């Protein structure tokens, strides 16, 4: 589902990724661990196209969606609109001014999947951190993601919310989505991930 080979990236002469390899099967939950600056986030950002790699290859069998540490929802819009925006990539311009009924129905199913259908019309800024991160995951689902890349998805959350988000990601992997999560807590990785990849100095250790 996801195959990364020999990925290289440097920022201003500082080598961040030095030939990184990773392949993830559908339904697999991989945790990326490693010290700060070891290139974990850069791998994910290269996969979704937020950074351009200097070399190597990335193959994604389907849609890749991203979940961020800082969540990055539009706080002033309600949860449903935020989830709908996951569908923008497949909507033509003339249909993206207002979301049509079928997009809203699909978005409601995604919100229901993360357990927040009852908060659909609440502004995201009024939801708790854990709820916001689940809305962000629903947005990834509305993108019809085959691969979810989560960049420290629980670092900003309290322990209880972190467990909820990790369980949700694991359950989504159980439904066939390939999940790669950058984590800072080894115990969470051991509890939830199928496989742990340690990174050090831009390569898999």
């Amino acid at each position, binding site marked *: 589902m996801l195959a990364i080979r020999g990925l290289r990236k440097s920022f201003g002469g500082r080598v961040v990724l030095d030939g990184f390899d990773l392949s993830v099967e559908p339904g697999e939950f991989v945790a990326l661990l490693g010290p700060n600056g070891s290139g974990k986030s850069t791998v994910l950002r290269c996969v979704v196209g937020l950074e351009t790699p200097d070399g190597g290859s990335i193959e994604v069998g389907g849609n890749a969606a991203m979940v961020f540490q800082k969540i990055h929802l539009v706080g002033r819009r309600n949860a449903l609109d935020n989830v709908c925006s996951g569908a*923008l990539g497949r*909507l033509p311009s003339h249909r993206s001014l207002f979301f049509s009924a079928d997009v809203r129905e699909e978005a409601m199913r995604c919100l229901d999947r993360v357990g927040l259908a009852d908060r659909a019309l609440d502004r995201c800024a009024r939801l708790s951190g854990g709820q916001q991160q689940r809305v962000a995951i629903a947005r990834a689902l509305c993108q019809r993601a085959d691969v979810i890349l989560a960049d420290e998805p629980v670092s900003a959350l309290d322990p209880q919310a972190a467990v909820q988000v990790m369980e949700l990601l694991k359950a989504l992997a159980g439904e066939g989505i390939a999940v790669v999560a950058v984590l800072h807590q080894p115990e969470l990785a051991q509890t939830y991930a199928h496989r742990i990849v340690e990174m050090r100095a831009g390569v898999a250790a």
Partner: protein
Amino acid sequence: MTLTSPQESSVPRRRWPSPVVWIAVAVLLAVHVLAWQATEFSPAALIAGWDGMADFLAESLPPDFSVLGKSLEAAVITLYIGLLGTTFSIPFALALALLASRATTSAAWAQQAARAVLSFLRSVPDVVFALIFVTAVGLGPFAGVLALVFHNTGVMGKLWAEAMDESDRGPRDALKVTGASGPQIALHAVLPTVMPSLAGLLLYRLDVNVRSSLVLGLVGAGGIGFLINQSIKLFRFDEMVTHILVVLLLVVVVDQASGFVRKRLGA
């Protein structure tokens, strides 16, 4: 806790301003001396001419309130000029701001072109626009509205583009990952985020434009500014004072109203 001895970390030396700063201060002073001379700035002349101002005030008091009805009517026209001048500039300001902001436009040439248009519109004063439009549509409020639309598009477009520039990058990145196009990101990430700022700036510009439309009246664009100009030309300073009191009222009302709404918006 023990204090570190000077050997381990010596106290940094006090740093005096560099010669560049001294030269800059000297140049600034010199420019002020030149400006003083060029503007014939002279407190003595003000004191010597004090009686002229006293005569003027004596003639203008008490105010002639018989023109109050006419004055209020004209004040409403002034308000309308400011209102339409602001409202009709919204679509142009929005389109140019979206093109000029790096949050919504990635093509450098489009950004530069939009910024050039905005800066041209901003640098031509509204009074100059009014004089130009008076030659096309004649004396009257319509010329004033057109002048404000042009000038305000330049100012508000720039303020809006800056508000968009400062918007959080995160939601934009998140939508980029979903495969959204530039216009889709502008519509679903940037605009919803900056809407309160845009509305606040709009109200601030309404406030400024109502005051500008007074000055436009002086060059023939109608409204209460026109009445003030007329009463000065006829040496009816008592009428002028009535008009000025009405202007004061108008400005305070608009200022308070826009301040109240801006506070509610939290912008």
